[in-house]
C-alpha cells in the first residue's frame, strides 16, 4: 500500500474516533461516577472517591434492591443459554439436509426477529391467560382440588418468560449455525463414516470438536441476550421481575449513584464473561489443530 494516505482517510479516521467517543463516553462517565464519594450525587463533580455505592449495593437495603431479581435473571439466562445452544445445533444439523418445511421454519425464525417485541410479549401473555382460563375450567369440572385452591397462573419466568427469551435468542443461534455449517468441510465426516464410525460417533468425535469454538459464541449470545432482555420480558414474567425490568423501573425513582454502581457491576460481569469465552475459544484452537 502507498505510504501516503489520502486526505479522506484522516477525515474518516477522525469521524470514527468521534463515533467511538459517542459509544464509550456515556459509559465511561457512569463508570467514573459509580466510584463517587458517599456525599456525591448523580452528576459531576466527583465528591471524593470511594467504593461506598458498591458496598451499599452488595449489602442490600439501599434504593436498589436486586438480590432476588439478579438470581432469577442469572438462572434464566443459564437455562436459555443451554437450550439455545442445543436447539440451534440440532436445527443447524437439520438444515444441512433437505426437509419439508425448511423454508417455512427459516422464515418464521426471521419473522421472530422482525416482529416488534411488544407484540410477541403481548401474544404470549394472552396465550397464557387463555391457558389459565382453560386450566381453571378443567379444574372446576374435574374437581381437582389443587387447581381450584392453589392455581393462580401459568405465567412465570421459567414458562412464558423462557419461551419469550427463546424467540429472541434462537434466530440468532440459527443464523450463526448457518454461517458455521456454510464453511464446514464435510470431507472430515465422510472420512469418519468411511472408517466405520456411526452417525453418533461421527458427530461426537468429528463434528462437535470442530464446531465447539462457535458453540461458545452461540452460548455467549444466548446468555447475554437473555440477561439483558427487556422488551419481550415486559408482559410475560407474571408476578416476578428480572434484573433489567427492576432496573428500568428504578430509572425514574433512584436519586443516588447506587444505580451507576449496579451498571458498572453488570457491565463488568459481561466483559468478564466475554474474556472467559475468548480464552476458552483460544484454548480450543491448538487442540483442534493437533487433532
Amino acid at each position, binding site marked *: 500500500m502507498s505510504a501516503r494516505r489520502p486526505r479522506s482517510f484522516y477525515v474518516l479516521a477522525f469521524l470514527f474516533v468521534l463515533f467511538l467517543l459517542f459509544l464509550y463516553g456515556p459509559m465511561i462517565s457512569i463508570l467514573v461516577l459509580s466510584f463517587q464519594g458517599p456525599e456525591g450525587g448523580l452528576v459531576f463533580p466527583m465528591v471524593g472517591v470511594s467504593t461506598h455505592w458498591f458496598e451499599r449495593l452488595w449489602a442490600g437495603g439501599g434504593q436498589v434492591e436486586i438480590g432476588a431479581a439478579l438470581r432469577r435473571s442469572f438462572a434464566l439466562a443459564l437455562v436459555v443459554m443451554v437450550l439455545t445452544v442445543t436447539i440451534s445445533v440440532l436445527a443447524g444439523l437439520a438444515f444441512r439436509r433437505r426437509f419439508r418445511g425448511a423454508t417455512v421454519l427459516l422464515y*418464521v425464525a426471521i419473522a421472530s*426477529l422482525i416482529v416488534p417485541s411488544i407484540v410477541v410479549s403481548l401474544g404470549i401473555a394472552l396465550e397464557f391467560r387463555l391457558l389459565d382460563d382453560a386450566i381453571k375450567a378443567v379444574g372446576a369440572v374435574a374437581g381437582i382440588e389443587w387447581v381450584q385452591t392453589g392455581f393462580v397462573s401459568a405465567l412465570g419466568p421459567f414458562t412464558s418468560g423462557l419461551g419469550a427469551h427463546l424467540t429472541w435468542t434462537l434466530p440468532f443461534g440459527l443464523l450463526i449455525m448457518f454461517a458455521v455449517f456454510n464453511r464446514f468441510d464435510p470431507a472430515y465426516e465422510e472420512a469418519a463414516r468411511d472408517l466405520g464410525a456411526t452417525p453418533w460417533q461421527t458427530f461426537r468425535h468429528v463434528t462437535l470438536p470442530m464446531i465447539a469454538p462457535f458453540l461458545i459464541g452461540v452460548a455467549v449470545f444466548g446468555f447475554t441476550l437473555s440477561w439483558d432482555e427487556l422488551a419481550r420480558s415486559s408482559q410475560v414474567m407474571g408476578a416476578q421481575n428480572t434484573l433489567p425490568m427492576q432496573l428500568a423501573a428504578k430509572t425514574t425513582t433512584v436519586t443516588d449513584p447506587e444505580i451507576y454502581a449496579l451498571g458498572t457491576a453488570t457491565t463488568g460481569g459481561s466483559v468478564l464473561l466475554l474474556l472467559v469465552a475468548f480464552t476458552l475459544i483460544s484454548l480450543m484452537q491448538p487442540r483442534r489443530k493437533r487433532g
Partner: protein
Amino acid sequence: MTDATDTNAGVRPVRASAGRRGSGRAGTALAPYLQAAPMALVFLVFFVLPLAATIVVSFWQYTQYSIEPAFTAQNYGDVFYGCLADLPRLCTTFLTYLSTLKFCLIVWVTTLTIGFTVAYFLAFHVHTLKIQVICFLLCTIPFWTSIVIRMISWIPLLGRNGLVNQTLVGMGVIDTPLEELLYSDFAVILALTHLYTLFMVVPIFNSLMRIDRSLIEAARDAGAGGPQTLLHVILPLARPGILIGSIFVVTVVMGDFLTIGIMGGQQIASVGKVIQTQMQFLQFPLAAANAVILLAAVLVGVWALLKLVDIRKEL
C-alpha cells in the same frame, strides 16, 4: 481415458453403495425432522400461536374483569375512534403513529449515515486485518451491556446539572441550563442512535467487504471521481447490507416503548407504550387490536423498504 473405460465397470459399485446409503437413510430419513422439531415446537408455541391468539382476541369483547369470546370489530373502532369524523384534526391514534414514524425516519437517517461512514472507513481505509478486527471489536463491546444501563448513562451528561450544561454555562454560551436535553425528543433520538447504529455497521461492513476491489479500480480507471465511485459503484453493491440494517432499525424503533419511555421521561407517546398501558389496565382485546395494527404497519414498512431499494436499482 481411464474415466471413460471405467464408467461401465464403476456404475454398479457406485449404485450399490448409493443403494446402501439410501437404505441407511431410510432409517435416518426422519433425522432432520427430529432435529428441527425442538426449534419448530418453540416457535409454534411461543411465536405462531401467540400471534394467532392476538388476532383472535382482538375481535373479542371485554369488561372490567374479564375477556369474553365474541366476534366484534368494536376494538378496532375504539382504536380509530373519531379518526374519520375529525379528519382535518388528527386523532390520538394517528398522532401517535405519526410521532413513532417521525422517530423511525430520523433514527433511520442518523444510524444509516453514521453506520455507513464507519463501515466504509473500516472496510476501505483500514488495510490490515488485525486492526480491522480490533476496531470492529471496539464497536461491538458496548452491545454487550444492558440497554437500560446504556440509557441511564446519558443522565450525567445531559441532565439539568449534567456535563453538557455545566460546560455551556461555564463557557458563557447560555445563562440557564437547558432543560430539554434529557427527557425530550432529542434524548430519544440520541439514545436510539446510540443503541442501534451497530446494527447498521455490521451488515453494511459485511456487504462492503464482499465488493471486488478491482471494480473500484475499474471505476477510477474509467475516470470516475471519488463521489461518483461511491454513488454508482459502492452504494449499489452495499444494497443488501443497507437493506438488512434498515429493516432491523426500522422495526425496532416502530415497536419501541422502552427507550421512548425512559428517555422521553414517560411523556412521549408511542404505539408500543399504548399497548403496554392497555395491558396494565387489563384491556386485552384493545391492546391486541393495537398490536395487530402495529404488526401490519411494520410489515408495510418492511415492504416499503424492499420497494424503495428495488426502485433505486431500476433507476
